[in-house]
């Protein structure tokens, strides 16, 4: 079943289950198993996976650094064999336990990124707004989210116009390294903020003109309905979470 068709509440529940599981587990092997199961499930659901790599790629260096640092900085493990020293450099001792702690962090990051990626690419903002309405979030909150999102293209267009206007007056926007970019950022922000304030002022009038605040509520335009497939996915996720919790707390597995 395509992820887009899954009920947004089920997706949220699965997302929360993954987050709980990956934090109770401190063993990289079990987290790697969880990651493998998640990836397999996403591929089976026909989720496009190409975008995931572009999210993971910039994190690679960070992940290597995490492993390097935790390898030498961790101590106090539950099992004595984990204190075994693998090698030492400049008086720093890299332990087996440290390596596993580092790898576990990496596995957690990958799990979080994958789960977030799957959730965001498959969930239109309207679904989230519908959930907000259903849990009786204040209606102004969903209006805030919608208007903020609908203004992103408007502001992006304004930014382009401002940059063009400055280039027309001889500004050298792109050429002087990170500091130069920050310096040329300032003159862009001034008109952008001025414009946003004017826009916000108009927006407040425009919303009132359309009756915003006439009642303390709004007609809801969408209903959410759970289908059998949604329930099935939910049950599988709950069962998997229970299994992980059982392994972790009854058998003591998955701890370093």
């Amino acid at each position, binding site marked *: 079943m395509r992820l887009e068709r899954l009920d947004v509440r089920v997706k949220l529940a699965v997302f929360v289950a993954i987050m709980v599981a990956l934090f109770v587990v401190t063993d990289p092997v079990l987290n790697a198993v969880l990651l493998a199961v998640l990836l397999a499930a996403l591929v089976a659901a026909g989720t496009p996976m190409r975008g995931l790599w572009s999210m993971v790629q910039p994190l690679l260096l960070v992940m290597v650094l995490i492993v390097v640092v935790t390898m030498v900085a961790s101590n106090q493990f539950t099992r004595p064999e984990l204190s075994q020293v693998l090698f030492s450099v400049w008086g720093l001792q890299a332990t087996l336990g440290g390596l596993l702690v580092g790898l576990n962090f990496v596995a957690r990051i990958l799990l979080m990124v994958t789960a977030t990626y799957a959730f965001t690419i498959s969930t239109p903002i309207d679904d989230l707004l519908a959930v907000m309405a259903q849990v009786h979030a204040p209606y102004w909150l969903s209006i805030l989210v919608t208007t903020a*999102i609908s203004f992103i293209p408007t502001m992006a267009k304004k930014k382009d116009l401002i940059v063009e*206007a400055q280039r*027309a007056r001889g500004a050298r926007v792109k050429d002087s390294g990170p500091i130069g970019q920050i310096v040329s950022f300032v003159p*862009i922000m001034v008109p952008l903020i001025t414009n946003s304030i004017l826009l916000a002022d108009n*927006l407040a009038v425009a919303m009132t003109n359309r009756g915003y605040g006439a009642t303390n509520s709004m007609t809801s335009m969408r209903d959410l309905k759970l289908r059998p497939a949604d329930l099935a996915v939910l049950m599988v996720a709950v069962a998997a979470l229970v299994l992980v919790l059982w392994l972790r707390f009854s058998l003591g597995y998955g701890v370093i």
Partner: protein
Amino acid sequence: MDRSLEVVGVSYRYPKADADVLHDVSVRFPTGSFTVLMGPTGAGKSTLLMTLNGVVPDLKEGTMSGEVHLDGVSLSGFRVQTITEHVGLVLQDPESQILGRSVAEDVAFGPRNYLVPRAEITRRVGESLAQVQLAGFEERETSQLSGGQKQRLAIAGVLALHPRVLCLDEPTSELDPAGRDEIYATVDALRRSGDVTIVAVEHASSDVVQRADELVVLKDGRVSWQGRPGDFFRDLDLVEANLVKPLPAVVIGSALAGAGLVPAADVPLGVDDLEALVRRLAGSRLPAPPDPAPVAPTSGRPVVELRDLVHTYPGGHRGLDGVSLTIEAGEYVALVGRNGAGKTTLAKHLNRILQPTSGSVVVDGIDASTLQPWELARHVGYVFQNPDHQIFCTTVAEEVRYGLKMAGLDAGEIEARVTEVLDFVGLGGVRDEHPFSLGKGERQRIAVASILALRPQILVVDEPTTGQDWAGVTSMMALIDRLNAAGTTIVMVTHDIDVVAHHARRVVVMDAGRVLADGPTADVLARTDVLARAAVSTTQTVELGRRLWPGATPLLDEAELGRHLVGSLTRADAR
């Protein structure tokens, strides 16, 4: 019962302002009528519209006296949200009124606030979109709409509340002629459909004069004139005194009236009636065509050469589809055509804000691709449409200094140029003011000044008159004319065909990324068939000349055509 919306003795002052923006204004809008508000910038037109649904004073605060009555009931004491169900207001800038990501979501915003049941909302969304000719657009993303479509969507969003009065603040000021026609088609349809009262602020005289039942002219916060639009526009002194743009047909007709050929009250407002009048006066002998104005010689020195210019935007849209054009030093060129025809895309190649996909741009004998944008900025100045995107300093002088510092001039030279250029554009007196404390016309001139300081030989101006009142249009165009007289080559992008006729000496008509026509202004404006293909209309003056003397080069100036007609018709009388 008295079915009307009535403003009774309203005065209003914005918070922290020194003076009232409205003084004792009383106007009556009968149910089902169409009233147009005109007058110079700052006269209080938008403020008056906002008093009609209570945004003034409720949201804007400030102090108001007097009352607004709907069907005899005072609106004071009602919340704005209660009034907006009856009196709808569409603001000037459609961008800031879009409240949904999809078209349907946006239109539904209003009725949802009143807890209208879902089925009824869906029905109203369809109905309102049909009223503004956007049926079938429900699932489109609002950010993908054109300017005219956004403007109509803003109207639909208010119509979905089923208001009895619809107030429109400059609904067409940012649109091309095709977009204006769309808006006025919507207004016409609404008028036919029943008893919606319409009140609109509008600068464009010719769109409203034949449509509106009533005209209210505001000046300095007071009603300076009120009555039938034709009576106002026939009185040129009155039009001038109120800083409103005169109708060319009336200028010609008034010349005839001045010579005693027609009673002043019978001066025609449109070209059809004017043509009939001239033919009636001439009888069997139509006056000879006027001698064409001499075409000014050009310098023969090319400053811009475009060869087979193609520009493809990311996503594959062809902005320019093979444009070749040579502009000589000292020329005054207007680029015209509908939105999206490629005018601005072409202009942006002149200073390399955009780079050609293929083809070449040669500026002053140098291939532009060998220059960086900041080097080109000294040859080609570019004044953008909205001054507020170009202003980012805290004083007027600082704003002008910015480009000069970027060019690396020494301090003495910079100060000399700042003083010179601010005096030239008439802003010497406000050099230490904050730009945003000044009016839009002045901000536009700051934008021009900051470009002029670099002393470009070529000046590109994008829509220099948009959103300005008649006084603003005249002073901006006088500034550009002076620059041209001093030797600067002008390339102007505009929708205002009257401005083109009176100022440009050469017109380039663009459509779908190509040049459709190119030549001396009078010749191009007479080719109405070509103009129509590019969704450009000609001026009343050229239209009359073309109809009276097909094939002859028409006069561009209505005063001149008026004198010619008077001259030849009175001579015919004497014989």
